[in-house]
């Protein structure tokens, strides 16, 4: 209790509170801009943490990243450009709802369920940190490989109406992820002599290209104006959010739980958490046919999951100094910089500091409500601006954003190449989401696959050689084979003496 009071004293310092608000606003702006990620927001803050107390330094990172992940939902809803990769899973649902005039509801839900997910993750962080991190610490390449494949199987669920086209899209994404130097031998693969490709296809320019460029191109080719649709009032938005929350509270809880777990596992970031939670909620939904066409259920599941993952990632980061994602990796760096060494002894040596951090986590998530309210008002203004004024500006913003990630014009090539590919794919009924998933998880899956094969001397059965890996492997195989068997069954059935003809497209 003494430590808690000391912690509270650290939090109410003017410096800490000012940092909390300043970093939140900063994270909000960065998250809103497509192409600028939460990681980028945090990275840009590091030089400023030099001049802060340890508590304020961590505050700035926690607040900026939490707000950036929430704010990333806003351009997703308004422009179909996810502000950060973590918002990509449910961007189609958000944008479809905006086209129906429900932008206010989407953003209010994003804010509310981001906060709920974040607070849930924090509570788990406070209560169960040591036990969960201990579990993840035991993991090796075997478990991470299966975890990655399990992540890929989400593609089956987010594939949409056509399973084969969804899987093809996933394969293309995986193929893109293999570009660059091979993990085991350093052999350049699919680079065709281009030195820019040795490091692989830069993900952020690709993401801007795949989500922004087709949208800009389509709008230019076929004129139309989203702004003409009447938008709900902010008051109506919060009321509807409350109603949606009452109806889909299970999705919010499920998203928070899944998000926290995925976030706590090293390698699983906020974006993976959003995908998995979206897919799992769709699988369990009573109205799966509405998904992807502007349904609030997936938005609730995804919004709560990505912010929960952010809190969850701090579990192994604080207790074992293992970063769960890039944000906590930077965070650990800042902790060392401030002379605070994360690890099992952290609660003995710096107890009050970390209780202060926990309080900051809660505050950083609560501040999303006023900022969400602000965002709805900004959104109403943004949507009133004529589309033909915004589109060219977005084009220039996308190009500059693609350049800014690596300070390299090659990023603009990636933007153009993947953007046109995505446009052609969507025109022909191929969903983009599985491709993004393939690009994100491809490297993780391959690296762990190769590591596991090398350590078992090439025995594929060895992938099941550890108990947790075996369980994960069996679950993964089950998840992959059931839809395929069901699909094959529906093809074979009309040939047999089935009483009801299967619908065959």
């Amino acid at each position: 209790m003494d430590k808690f009071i000391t912690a509270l004293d650290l939090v109410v310092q003017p410096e800490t509170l000012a940092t909390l608000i300043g970093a939140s606003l900063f994270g909000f702006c960065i998250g809103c801009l497509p192409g600028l990620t939460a990681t980028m927001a945090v990275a840009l803050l590091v030089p400023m943490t030099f001049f802060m107390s340890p508590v304020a330094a961590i505050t700035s990172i926690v607040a900026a990243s939490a707000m950036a992940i929430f704010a990333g939902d806003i351009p997703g809803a308004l422009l179909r450009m996810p502000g950060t990769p973590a918002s990509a899973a449910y961007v189609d649902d958000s944008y479809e709802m905006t086209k129906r005039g429900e932008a206010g509801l989407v953003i209010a839900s994003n804010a509310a369920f981001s906060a709920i997910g974040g607070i849930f993750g924090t509570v788990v962080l406070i209560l169960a940190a040591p036990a969960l991190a201990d579990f993840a610490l035991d993991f090796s390449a075997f478990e991470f490989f299966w975890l990655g494949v399990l992540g890929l199987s989400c593609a089956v669920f987010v594939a949409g109406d056509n399973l084969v086209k969804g899987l093809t899209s996933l394969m293309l994404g995986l193929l893109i992820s293999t570009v660059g130097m091979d993990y085991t031998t350093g052999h350049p693969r699919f680079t065709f002599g281009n030195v820019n490709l040795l490091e692989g296809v830069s993900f952020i320019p690709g993401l801007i290209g795949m989500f922004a460029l087709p949208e800009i191109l389509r709008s230019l080719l076929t004129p139309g104006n989203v702004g003409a649709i009447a938008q709900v009032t902010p008051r109506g938005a919060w009321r509807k959010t409350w109603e949606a929350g009452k109806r889909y509270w299970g999705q919010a809880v499920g998203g928070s739980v899944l998000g926290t777990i995925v976030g706590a596992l090293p390698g699983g970031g906020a974006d993976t958490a959003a995908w998995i939670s979206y897919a799992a909620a769709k699988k369990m939904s009573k109205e799966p046919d509405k998904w992807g066409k502007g349904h609030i259920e997936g938005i609730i599941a995804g919004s709560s999951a990505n912010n929960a993952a952010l809190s969850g990632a701090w579990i192994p980061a604080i207790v074992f100094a293992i970063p769960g994602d890039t944000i906590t990796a930077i965070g650990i760096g800042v902790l060392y910089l401030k002379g605070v060494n994360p690890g099992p002894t952290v609660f003995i040596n710096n107890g009050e500091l970390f209780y202060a951090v926990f309080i900051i986590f809660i505050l950083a998530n609560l501040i999303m409500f006023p900022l969400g309210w602000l965002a709805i008002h900004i959104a109403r203004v943004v949507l009133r601006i004529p589309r033909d004024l915004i589109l060219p500006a977005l084009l220039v913003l996308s190009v500059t954003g693609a350049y800014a990630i690596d300070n390299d014009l090659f990023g603009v090539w990636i933007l153009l190449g993947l953007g046109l590919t995505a446009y052609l794919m969507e025109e022909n009924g191929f969903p983009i989401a599985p491709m993004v998933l393939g690009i994100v998880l491809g490297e993780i899956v391959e690296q762990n696959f190769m590591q596991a094969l090398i350590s078992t001397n090439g025995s594929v059965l060895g992938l099941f050689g550890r108990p947790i890996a075996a369980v994960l492997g069996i679950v993964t195989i089950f998840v992959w084979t059931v839809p395929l068997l069901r699909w094959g069954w529906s093809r074979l059935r009309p040939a047999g003496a089935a009483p009801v003809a299967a619908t065959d497209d």
Partner: protein
Amino acid sequence: MKFGDGLIGLFIVALGVAVFWHVQSFPSVPGRFYGPGLFPEVIAAGLLICGAIMLAGVLRAAPIHAFRVEAPSWRGNPRGVVSGITMLAAILSFIFLGDAVGFQIIGFVTLVAFYLWLGRPLPVALLVAAGVTLALDLLFRVVLHVPVPSGPLTELW
């Protein structure tokens, strides 16, 4: 632009074969089946299977329609086509002229060209383009310290 599923299936199969063929040139470690080519081979197999299923599907249902190229949705909309081409031209000029001319000038010209083409009067086009260019420059170059290529303007700031 819409392609028939048969054409797409053929393309996917061809891509799978090409990947598989190209991967054979990757070095392999003697006595090991797992090298840099293994994972791409698995992907190539996946592409082959997906392409084959698509082909099998169309051959059973409607073989003639499956190999057609449909008229694109923007046919009969020349204004839209010009806008699309302008977009491509703008991106390519960022790539090829970015270092020499600078992002600010290319961005400004792109914006003015688009606004005029989309029917805005010249003063509005100039004003909005200047405002957007300044705002983006302020954000990226000044606030975020991104070394945005500025071409001849580099001397000015």
